């Protein structure tokens, strides 16, 4: 064997050997994590540099944090020097600080216009008001890029101040004004977001509210109202309430595929399904003009994608939401033809396709299976714990029905099987898992009372160990 070889070449040859294809498991696990774990809001994201900031950003080779610390030290030193150099000041007799009149809390309602900081578009004014005067301050915080909360208003406690709440919602870059109404009597907040024409991709809006006394985020809820037509200055217009249309989509399988179309533009004149195609021609959601007023929206999916929601934004931006479904199933192309009462340039539309997006109004997961009688069923799963990383419908034909109408089996450290007896009706049951992951509620769905009971069996895989002993499971009536 030759052992006198060039080290560089030998090293290159040596490193050439080895796998060049990634195993599926870590990839699937990471994708599942991404789908089930929304990015956390980064309240100080604006302080963080670009992840690829060049070394030149450093000053004299020092890390930015060290430079800032150094500057702070210098400033502090100068302050001490200046203060120390002053002659002692003779303080005239007067009331001690404790007897100074404090700033008396006024009970006048809070009303202030603040500047909303944004990552795209222009900062804009927002009117913040309350009802009782318990609100004492409101400031906008610079958000990070992208959107980290779902629809609606996300309210959390400020870990550094028990009397403060962090309020987040989604806005769009074209907004130029808005309002935040705080009602302490009902513990509700209403964000009035101005409808506008332009880029509609949602971005975070963050406001920190400080109250006179301790507040609990859990007691608060909030809603977003889109008000005004683009360019209009009038506030809420009830005629702009989103209009929802339910549409059955053509399908190549025996499944029913549907889409709810929420029109916030007020210009949708009609919608029909496009043809069903087994081989997707697109990788992503794609919009194209059939004619000046008609847009064909196409997106890739799987046979397991059976329910969708399409939101048409005020500027005609098109967002498709759907639940996650079991990975690796047959590909399908879905399409819908939208007709508007005015010309719409499909090439200028912002489009998006999301699976299992929290707050989208869709179940986090959906699956389709066969019950013990061979009948098809669809199951929606709402996983508020964001810990489910995959679901599967299992063979139910040879499974003994559980004596208590349901049974949880530990199929692995992170895998739980659920077997239940329920009416063999077509209306999909819904499984809800609370934020702690320990409280499961299965709503059977409405059904023909004469329909015979069937057995169904599914498995859920979690992102970590999960014991059936920690789960409080209940079957509840539909809609409970």
């Amino acid at each position, binding site marked *: 064997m030759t*052992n*006198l070889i060039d080290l560089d070449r030998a090293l*290159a040859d040596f490193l050439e050997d080895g796998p060049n294809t990634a195993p599926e498991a870590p990839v699937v696990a990471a994708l599942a994590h991404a789908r089930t774990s929304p990015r956390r809001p980064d309240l100080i994201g604006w302080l963080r540099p670009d992840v690829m900031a060049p070394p030149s950003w450093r000053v004299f080779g020092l890390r930015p944090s060290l430079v800032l610390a150094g500057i702070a030290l210098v400033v502090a030193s100068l302050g001490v020097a200046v203060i120390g150099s002053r002659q002692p000041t003779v303080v005239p007799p007067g009331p001690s600080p404790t007897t100074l009149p404090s700033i008396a809390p006024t009970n006048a309602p809070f009303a202030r216009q603040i500047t909303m900081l944004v990552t795209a578009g222009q900062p804009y004014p927002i009117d913040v008001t309350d009802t009782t005067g318990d609100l004492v301050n409101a400031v906008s915080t610079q958000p990070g890029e992208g959107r980290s909360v779902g629809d609606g208003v996300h309210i959390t406690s400020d870990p550094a101040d028990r009397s403060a709440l962090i309020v987040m919602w989604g806005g769009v870059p074209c907004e130029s004004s808005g309002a935040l109404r705080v009602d302490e009597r009902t513990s509700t907040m209403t964000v009035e977001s101005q409808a506008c024409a332009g880029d509609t991709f949602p971005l975070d809006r963050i406001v920190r509210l400080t109250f006179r006394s301790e507040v609990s985020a859990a007691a608060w809820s909030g809603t977003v109202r889109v008000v005004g037509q683009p360019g209009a200055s009038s506030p809420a217009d009830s005629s702009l309430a989103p209009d929802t249309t339910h549409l059955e989509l053509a399908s190549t399988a025996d499944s029913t595929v549907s889409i709810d179309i929420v029109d916030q533009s007020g210009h949708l004149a009609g919608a029909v399904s496009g043809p069903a195609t087994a081989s997707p021609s697109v990788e992503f959601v794609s919009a194209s003009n059939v004619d000046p007023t008609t847009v064909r929206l196409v997106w890739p999916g799987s046979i397991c994608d059976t329910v969708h929601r399409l939101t048409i934004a005020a500027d005609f931006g098109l967002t498709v939401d759907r639940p996650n479904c079991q990975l690796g199933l047959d590909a399908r192309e879905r399409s819908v033809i939208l007709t508007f009462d005015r010309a719409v340039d499909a090439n200028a539309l912002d489009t998006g396709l999301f699976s299992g997006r929290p707050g989208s109004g869709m179940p986090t997961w959906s699956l389709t299976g066969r019950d013990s009688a061979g009948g098809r069923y669809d199951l929606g799963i709402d996983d508020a714990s964001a810990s489910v990383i995959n679901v599967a419908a299992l063979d139910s034909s040879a499974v003994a029905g559980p004596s208590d109408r349901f049974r949880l089996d530990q199929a692995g450290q992170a895998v739980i099987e659920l077997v239940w007896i329920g009416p063999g009706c077509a209306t999909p049951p819904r499984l809800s898992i609370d934020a702690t992951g320990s409280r499961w509620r299965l709503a059977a769905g409405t059904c023909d009372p004469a329909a015979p009971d069937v057995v169904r069996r599914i498995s859920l895989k979690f992102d970590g160990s999960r014991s059936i002993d920690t789960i409080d499971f209940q079957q509840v009536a539909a809609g409970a």
Partner: protein
Amino acid sequence: MDQRELVRRAAKGEHEAFDALVRLASNRLYGIAYRILRDQYRAEDALQQALINIWNELPRLRDPDRFDAWTYRVIVRAATAEARRAGATPTTPLLPADADASRAPDDYGAVADRDQLERGFSRISAEQRAVLVLQHYAGLSQAEIADVLGVPLGTAGSRIHYAVRALRAAIEADARLGTGRESMA
């Protein structure tokens, strides 16, 4: 759809775009991780962690054109962190005590067969393995390695230089101990 658009969409939270990016990058990243760690399971763990980090941090990547370089950085960090977590990586000092500082790496000529390389490679630190993998496997230039590691160009050069020396020293030590299958020239 080009990668730049995929990065832009994934940064905004579009899962399908992220899926496509992962499919494009995962083989490349796994190859890097495996060669740094020399262990299939640790490489899988590093890849999974790197992909999760990429998802979480993607909004902070200002320039989508730098996605590839950034993902190299992420996988190198994940792999070296995995190596530290495993805690079983024998390391050689950055500058071997017995290294002749007057000799440039090229002067070492040549030396090892595959088994010696395997053993020598396993004896140097994960950070040193990383720069060698970036240079000899990923085919990155010194400037690109500096960009990936987030260090000045000269520092990248030093790291490559010392990594080669460390590998050479490890191979020579292996030969002196008689563990090599054939004697070194």
